[in-house]
C-alpha cells in the first residue's frame, strides 16, 4: 500500500498502539526544569542519554557573558544553572555558555548533524517543526511530555492527519522562503493546519536550499500544524555530509533516506496548491503571523482583513498603532532584529549582508544581528560578515534566542516598532507593548537602511 513520507516514519516508530519511539530529544533550559524535578520525585532516570542533548538558548544574554554564573538576571541565571546541574546529575551532554557548540536548539541540531532524515525528533519548544526540513518527523511538546520522553524514550500520540501543500513554479527575485511561508499562513489562517502534519512539495520547494527549507518548516506551527516536512534529496545530503554526527556508513544511509519520500500513489487527507511565482515579499501588519500582506499593499481596514475577523483585526491594529489604508512602505521603524530559529543561519546572514552594499543604518533605527549559534557566528566572522554589518551600523552579537521572545536583556520598549526576522508578532512577544512586523532577512536589512519598509525588488 502506498504511503506518505509521514506514514513511513510513523509506522516505523510505533512501539505499540499510540506509542511512538523518539530518536532524538533536544532539551533547553525553559521547559525542562520541572521535568527533571518530576523524575527525581518519582525516582526515575533518563532512559537513553545517547539520544538526548541539551543547550541553553532562551535566557542567554547576547553580550558575550562567558558563563552561566555571570548572567546578571537572577532568574535567568538560576534557570541556566539548573539546566547545567540537571544535565550533570543525569549524565546528559549539554552545550551551555562557554561552549563553542552552543546556540539556538533548532540551529545546532542540524549544524552538528544530529538532525537526520527519517528520525522522530522532539523538544519542549514549538519550533521543533524546523527539523522536518530534513525529512524527519519533528514536533514541539510540553514539559510533561519532556518528562515522559526522558523516562521512557517514547510518547503517547494519536496519529495526526496529513496535508500536502504543493508550490508550483519558482519564487521570483527578492521573494524568499520566509515570504512563502508567511503567504501560506496568510491564506490558510493561524489554525489552518491544526491537527495536520504538513508536507511541503513542488518545484519551489525543490529549489530551496536546506536553510531556506528550515525557515519554511519552522513556521509550520504558526499555521497551527503539528509538524512540517520536506522530502530529503541531494540538497539535503550535500548539506549533511561531513557534519559531526552523521552516519559513518554514508552510502547506506543515503539509500535508506531516499526511500522515505512519499510514494506516487499515496493520498493525503488534504491537499493545497499555491502558485509560488505569484508571491511577493510579505510584511505582517497585526498580532498573529496570519495578519500579513504584500509589501506593495496597504494596512487593511478591519472589515477587509481577509480571513481575520473584523473585531480581531481592529484590536490588532490598535495594538500595532496602525491606521487602515497606510502604505506598508510608509511604516517607519525604530528597531531591526535579524536572528531567531527562523532566520539566523549563515545563509540568512549572507542574504541580509548582501543588501547593505556600503550603505548605513538609518539614524533613528537600532539594528542588531544575532547569529543562531556560536558556529554561525564564527563562520560569519571568517567570511567578514561581521565587518559588513558593523560598518553599516548594525550590532553584531553572540548567539541566542535574543529578541525573538525577550527572555534575555534584548527586548523592545513599549510602542517601539521592529522589523524582525523571527516567527511571532504576538502582543508583547518582543517586550511588553512592543510592535513586531515579521519579514525576511533581506527585507529587514533594507528596512534598517531606509528606516521604513521597502520593496526590495525595486530597490538598489
Amino acid at each position, binding site marked *: 500500500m502506498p504511503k506518505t513520507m509521514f506514514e513511513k516514519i510513523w509506522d*516505523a*516508530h510505533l*512501539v*505499540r498502539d*499510540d*506509542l511512538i*519511539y523518539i*530518536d*532524538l530529544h533536544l532539551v533547553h533550559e*525553559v*521547559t525542562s526544569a*520541572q521535568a527533571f*524535578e518530576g523524575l527525581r520525585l*518519582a525516582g526515575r532516570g533518563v*532512559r537513553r542519554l*545517547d*539520544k538526548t542533548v541539551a543547550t541553553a538558548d*532562551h*535566557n542567554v544574554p547576547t553580550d558575550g557573558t562567558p558563563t552561566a554564573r555571570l548572567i546578571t*538576571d537572577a*532568574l535567568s541565571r*538560576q*534557570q541556566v544553572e*539548573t539546566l547545567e546541574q540537571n544535565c550533570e546529575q543525569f549524565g*546528559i*551532554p549539554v552545550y551551555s555558555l562557554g561552549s563553542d557548540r552552543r546556540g539556538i536548539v533548532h540551529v545546532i541540531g542540524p549544524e552538528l*548533524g*544530529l538532525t*537526520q532524515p527519517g*528520525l522522530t525528533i522532539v523538544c519542549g519548544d*514549538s519550533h521543533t517543526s524546523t527539523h522536518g526540513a530534513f525529512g524527519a518527523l519533528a514536533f*514541539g*511538546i*510540553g514539559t*510533561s*511530555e519532556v518528562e*515522559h520522553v526522558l523516562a*521512557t524514550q517514547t510518547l*503517547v500520540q494519536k496519529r*495526526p492527519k496529513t496535508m500536502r501543500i504543493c508550490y508550483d513554479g519558482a519564487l521570483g527575485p527578492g521573494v524568499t522562503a520566509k515570504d512563502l511561508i508567511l503567504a501560506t499562513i496568510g491564506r490558510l489562517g*493561524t*489554525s489552518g493546519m*491544526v*491537527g495536520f502534519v504538513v508536507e511541503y512539495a513542488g518545484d519551489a520547494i525543490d529549489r530551496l536550499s536546506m536553510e531556506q527549507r528550515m525557515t519554511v518548516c519552522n513556521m509550520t*506551527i504558526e499555521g*497551527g500544524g503539528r509538524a512540517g516536512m520536506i522530502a530529503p534529496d541531494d540538497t539535503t545530503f550535500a548539506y549533511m555530509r561531513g557534519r559531526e*554526527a*552523521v552516519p559513518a556508513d554514508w552510502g547506506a544511509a543515503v539509500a*535508506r533516506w531516499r526511500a522515505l519520500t512519499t510514494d506516487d500513489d499515496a493520498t493525503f487527507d488534504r491537499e493545497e496548491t499555491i502558485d509560488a511565482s505569484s508571491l511577493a515579499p510579505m510584511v505582517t501588519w497585526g498580532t*498573529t503571523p496570519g495578519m500579513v500582506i504584500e509589501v506593495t499593499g496597504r494596512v487593511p481596514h478591519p472589515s477587509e482583513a481577509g480571513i481575520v475577523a473584523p473585531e*480581531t483585526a481592529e*484590536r490588532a491594529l490598535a495594538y500595532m498603532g496602525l491606521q487602515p489604508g497606510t502604505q506598508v512602505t510608509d511604516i517607519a521603524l525604530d528597531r531591526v532584529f535579524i536572528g531567531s530559529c527562523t532566520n539566523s543561519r549563515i545563509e540568512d546572514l549572507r542574504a541580509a549582508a548582501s543588501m547593505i552594499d556600503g550603505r548605513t543604518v538609518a539614524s533613528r533605527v537600532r539594528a542588531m544581528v544575532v547569529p543562531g549559534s556560536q558556529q554561525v557566528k564564527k563562520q560569519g566572522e571568517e567570511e567578514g560578515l561581521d565587518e559588513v554589518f558593523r560598518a553599516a551600523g548594525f550590532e553584531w552579537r553572540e548567539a541566542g534566542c535574543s529578541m525573538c521572545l*525577550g*527572555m534575555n536583556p534584548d527586548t523592545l520598549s513599549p510602542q517601539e516598532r521592529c522589523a524582525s526576522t523571527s516567527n*511571532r508578532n*504576538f*502582543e*508583547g*512577544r518582543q517586550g*511588553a507593548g512592543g510592535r513586531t512586523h515579521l519579514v525576511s532577512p533581506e527585507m529587514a536589512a533594507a528596512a534598517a537602511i531606509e528606516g521604513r519598509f521597502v520593496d526590495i525588488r525595486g530597490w538598489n
Partner: protein
Amino acid sequence: MEPVTVISGTVSVLDRADVDTDQIIPKQFLKRIERTGYGEFLFYDWFRSGEITLEPNPILVAGSNFGSGSSREHAVWAIQQFGFAAVVAPSFSDIFYGNCTKNGLLPIRLPEEDVRALMAAGEATINLERQTVTFAGRTVSFEIDADVKHRLLHGLDEIALTLQHGPDIDSYERERMAPGPVTTAL
C-alpha cells in the same frame, strides 16, 4: 493528577480568537523552575492594563484557536492555578490541548454556536463520564479520546502507564530501532 469527573459552576467569558500562550503567561514568568505559583500571573498584561477581567470560576469559555503559539506548559499551570478546571472553545492548538490533558485541565471543543450560547448562559455543568455540557436547560455532547478520558477520570500518571509497556519498548529497541545519531559520542 487529580481525577476529573464533574465540573459545575459559573462561566468566565474571554470572547477572543487566537489567544496565544504568550498572552496566557508572558515570557518573564517562564524563568521559574517550579510547577506552582503561576496563577497570579495569568493574562498578566491584559489584566494589568484593565483590558480584560476574569473571575476564577470553574469554567473558562473562549474563542477559536485557543492556546496557539509556544509549547509552554506554564500556560496550563497558570490557568489551572488561577482557578479554572475546564476550558471550552471552538478549537485549540494541538500542543496546548495535549498539555491540558497531562495536568487534568479539561479542554472541551464545542461548535461555535454552542460556545456562543454557553457564553450567554453564564453557568454550566460538565460531565466527563457522559461527555456532556449542560447549560440553559439543554445538554450538548463533546468528543474526547477514549484513552485520554480514562486517564483524566482516574487521575492516572501517563509515565507510569507507559512504563507498564517497558517490555515492548525493550523489544522495539532490540529489533526495530532505526539507526540514529549518538549524542554522547560528540
